[in-house]
């Protein structure tokens, strides 16, 4: 592990250093060239306006009689974000583009004047209102893009190094150590499976030869099977990361993509239609998990992962060629099934290859990989969407999904998984009638998921695009959620153990979540949304892990009787109802109250759920229950 850590740190240092250096160079070049480029552009615009006016004069139209100037100016202002307004001053009268005066009062607005020369005389003056901070804004955008790319490349490099070092070095050393340990501790002879021709392979062959000698000399049998038998959880990290990354590329603009297929003729609100594919995706995904889980148990993780990621790729390719909302729903459903199969298969892989001692760590790795992939994909997808068309990004996602399938085919060993007990309806009924299970699920877990899909996946991209922000800004803002989850989760996990009960954490997280969602209602700006998303990440990092811990701890007898896995499975199933409801509920709120107020109502919903839970806790405390 120490070797791992050192290698990882070294790679980090090199990668970070070089990418920072390259980014600094790029940034400097850009910052130097953008200012003159912007000046040239505004000069060209003024020149065009002047030549059209001169032409009208040439036809014999008097200067004061040139008509339709506002209609001529406005599209120019709309098409050029750095131009705030255009004014033609002719003698004492003047014509302005829309809201010229308001724009002129902006502190960053600069007025540039150009003469209109006709027949050798200056007859009028064109004034362009230019955003004086446009160059800085663009430079800042580039800087943020560069930083995002650095963060994501560091994450990707980390995932890759963990795999490569694990596969080529630490896993092999562990096998050698296990073999030696078996011999030293228990005098058992196990050969090491390694046929590589590198130094470790040489060492392995030497050791194996010695084992044969000892076996022959001491008449001891050579045991079959490898020394450890388990595949490291880290092996599945990279392909899982890649798949989550590919699926998340569209996260920051998906609702905008869906919006293209909306037609007002259907008689339903736009918000409902835009939310529909997300809800359907979540629904099909939730359905595919239990079914896919059972299937994955029987056919083995390798085949299930490959099948699931191929299905995801097919769904993504078809999504790229969407024509109508109906085919979009079908293609997204295919993607959801594939994604669900991979998701549950990776969980199964972690369970298969861990035991009680390291299962929690394995699951934490699973969750961390999921969020790392999700935040990286969202951020990169946002940047890409500013430059290439959305269907191309779906195709790119499909290629990455295929890559993850290929990777698993190449590096992950086959074999069946452990058959887990099926969920029976009776068990579900028994678990769901438990008061504390039901309360936490209904009033904490489901509202959390409603906030995740309704607020983050559905509303945030729409809200960001309504603010005229770029898609890369959208990606970065949404990425904050994952960033906070990753950074805070382990910290909170350590701290949470000091609490006797998890309830205060659940209630605090719920309250914080409600507060977070209310922020855009009070502060409908990009900054408001950023604070809100960061707080939501924080709230979920606090509350969500505690929900499950609370349930398993308070229902120890139930868990012991039915098996922990059963209870957890049912909890996950219930929780996903929130995933499905999220976009539907928020879409409804938007169509009823408008987007700003909808945040208030969603906050009210999450807040009152938390309050209900708190009242129940308080009452049952008085009665002496949990």
């Amino acid at each position: 592990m120490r070797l791992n850590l050192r290698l990882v740190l070294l790679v980090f240092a090199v990668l970070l250093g070089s990418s920072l250096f390259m980014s600094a160079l790029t940034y400097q070049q850009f910052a130097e060239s953008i200012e003159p480029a912007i000046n040239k552009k505004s000069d060209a615009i003024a020149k065009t306006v002047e030549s059209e006016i001169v032409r009208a004069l040439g036809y014999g139209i008097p200067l004061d009689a040139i008509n339709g100037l506002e209609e001529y100016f406005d599209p120019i202002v709309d098409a050029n974000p750095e131009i705030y307004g255009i004014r033609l001053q002719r003698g004492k009268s003047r014509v302005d583009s829309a809201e010229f005066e308001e724009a002129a009062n902006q502190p960053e607005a600069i007025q540039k004047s150009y003469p209109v020369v006709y027949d050798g005389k200056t007859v009028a003056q064109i004034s362009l209102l230019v955003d004086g901070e446009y160059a800085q804004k663009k430079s800042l955008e580039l800087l943020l893009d560069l930083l995002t790319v650095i963060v994501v490349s560091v994450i990707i490099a980390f995932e890759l190094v963990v795999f490569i070092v694990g596969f080529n070095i630490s896993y092999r050393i562990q096998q050698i150590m296990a073999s030696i340990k078996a011999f030293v501790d228990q005098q058992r002879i196990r050969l090491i499976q390694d046929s590589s021709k590198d130094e470790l392979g040489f060492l392995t062959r030497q050791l194996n030869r010695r084992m044969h000698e000892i076996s022959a000399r001491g008449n001891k049998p050579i045991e079959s099977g490898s020394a450890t038998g388990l595949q490291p959880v880290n092996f599945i990290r990279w392909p899982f990361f890649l798949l989550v990354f590919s699926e998340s590329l569209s996260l920051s603009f998906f609702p905008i993509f869906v919006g293209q297929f909306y037609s007002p003729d259907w008689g339903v609100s736009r918000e409902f239609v835009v939310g529909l594919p997300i809800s359907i995706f979540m629904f099909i995904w939730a359905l595919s998990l239990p079914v896919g889980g059972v299937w994955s148990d029987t056919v083995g993780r390798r085949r299930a992962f490959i099948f699931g990621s191929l299905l995801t790729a097919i769904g993504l390719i078809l999504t790229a060629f969407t024509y109508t909302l109906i085919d979009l729903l079908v293609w997204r459903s295919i993607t959801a099934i594939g994604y669900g199969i991979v998701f549950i298969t990776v969980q199964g892989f972690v369970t298969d290859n861990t035991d009680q001692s390291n299962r929690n760590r394995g699951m934490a790795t699973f969750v961390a990989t999921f969020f790392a992939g999700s935040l990286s994909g969202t951020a990169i997808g946002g940047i890409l969407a500013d430059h290439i068309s959305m269907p191309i990004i779906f195709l790119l996602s499909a290629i990455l999904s295929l890559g993850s399938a290929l990777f698993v085919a190449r590096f992950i060993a086959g074999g069946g998984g452990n058959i887990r007990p099926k969920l029976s309806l009776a068990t579900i009924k028994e678990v769901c009638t438990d008061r504390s299970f039901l309360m936490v699920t209904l009033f904490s877990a489901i509202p959390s998921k409603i906030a995740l899909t309704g607020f983050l996946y559905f509303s945030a991209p729409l809200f960001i695009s309504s603010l005229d922000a770029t898609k890369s800004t959208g990606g970065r803002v949404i990425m904050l959620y994952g960033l906070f989850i990753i950074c805070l989760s382990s910290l909170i996990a350590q701290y949470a153990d000091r609490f006797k009960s998890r309830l205060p954490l659940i209630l605090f997280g719920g309250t914080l979540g409600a507060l977070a969602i209310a922020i855009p209602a009070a502060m409908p700006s990009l900054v408001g949304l950023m604070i809100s998303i960061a707080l939501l990440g924080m709230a979920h990092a606090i509350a969500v892990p505690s929900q499950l811990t609370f349930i398993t701890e308070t229902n120890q007898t139930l868990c012991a009787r039915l098996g922990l896995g059963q209870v957890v499975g049912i909890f996950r199933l219930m929780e996903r109802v929130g995933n499905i409801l999220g976009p539907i509920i928020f879409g409804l709120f938007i169509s009823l109250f408008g987007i700003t107020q909808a945040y208030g109502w969603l906050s009210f919903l999450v807040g009152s759920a938390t309050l209900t839970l708190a009242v129940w806790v308080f009452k049952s405390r008085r009665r002496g229950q949990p």
Partner: protein
Amino acid sequence: MNLTWLIRLTVAISMVLSIGAPAFASETAAQGPGKKYRIAMILYRGETDAERGFKKYLQSRQVNVEYIVRDASEDPKRFPEIVREIKALRPDLIYTFGTGATLAVCGKTDQQNDARFISDTPVIFNIVADPIGSGITKSMQSTERNVTGVTHLVPIDSQLSALKATANIKTIGVIYSLNEKNAVLSADSLVEGANNAGYRVIRYPVSADNSAGDLASLKSVVAKIQAEKPDLLYLPSDSFLIRHAGLISEGMQHARIPSMSATEAPIRKDGFTMGLVSPYVNAGALAGHKAYQILVEGKDPSDIPVSALDKFAYILNMKSALKIGFYPKIRALTFAEIINADTHKPAKSGMTK
């Protein structure tokens, strides 16, 4: 900016293409002057650009044609006699100009077996404003008889968009002859389209059958328009009024009322202010192409759809506009074909910065 350049470019290209495209199609021209075809032309008011475009097209494709031209000289009563003569001459193809001539040659769709009409010779009509409304065909896809042709009608919504891009006005007066079916249809469709677009429309019908008294009736209608002063006068495709477009135009100039025409000639020749039109020469070339398909390629007229031009020319008569102090919006200037501009002062840009 790009948009207006695009519009200018497409207008320019479409004009070049529809006139010049045949020049590129040299593979069939290699046949050389083969069979000599006899085409009868039945005209209403003499040869126009439409016929010139037609002839030029066939010439460019090296089709050897002998034309038999008959002109009704604006008297519809002469058509039956012309048709009888042409029927006896048995040409290879008949070209008709206008709704009247076309109906005189082939009748309406329900008059096919009428002996007065010609059904055994292919007919190509041109400059018919509304082939369906006037009963020449039931569908644009096929006339289902020995007839096909070209309509020069520009969709009314396109004309109104062009008007909107040129000036902000509220009332449109429409002048039309009551006895010209296509003019009445055009006026009706203008009223409907303009009402939908938020304009108020005033109808100015003229009862005319070409007698001397009708000119007096027209003059009184013009006087009425001068008195009521709509913001703009619209002239649909109307043979009688197009012939007297100069009189109408003069009246409008006098009252400083801008005028818009659905056809080309009143703008180019009579001083109408503007119009979004299918240039006659292009319509003629398209009709010529259909004649080529029938004569040389041996296609059946019922297999050739009736078609309209899909690119139009927006013409602005600058001299007329300036005379009445009508100043088109600056954006219109960028995509219009401006005629009669006083260019003694060349437009030159002298910006230094």
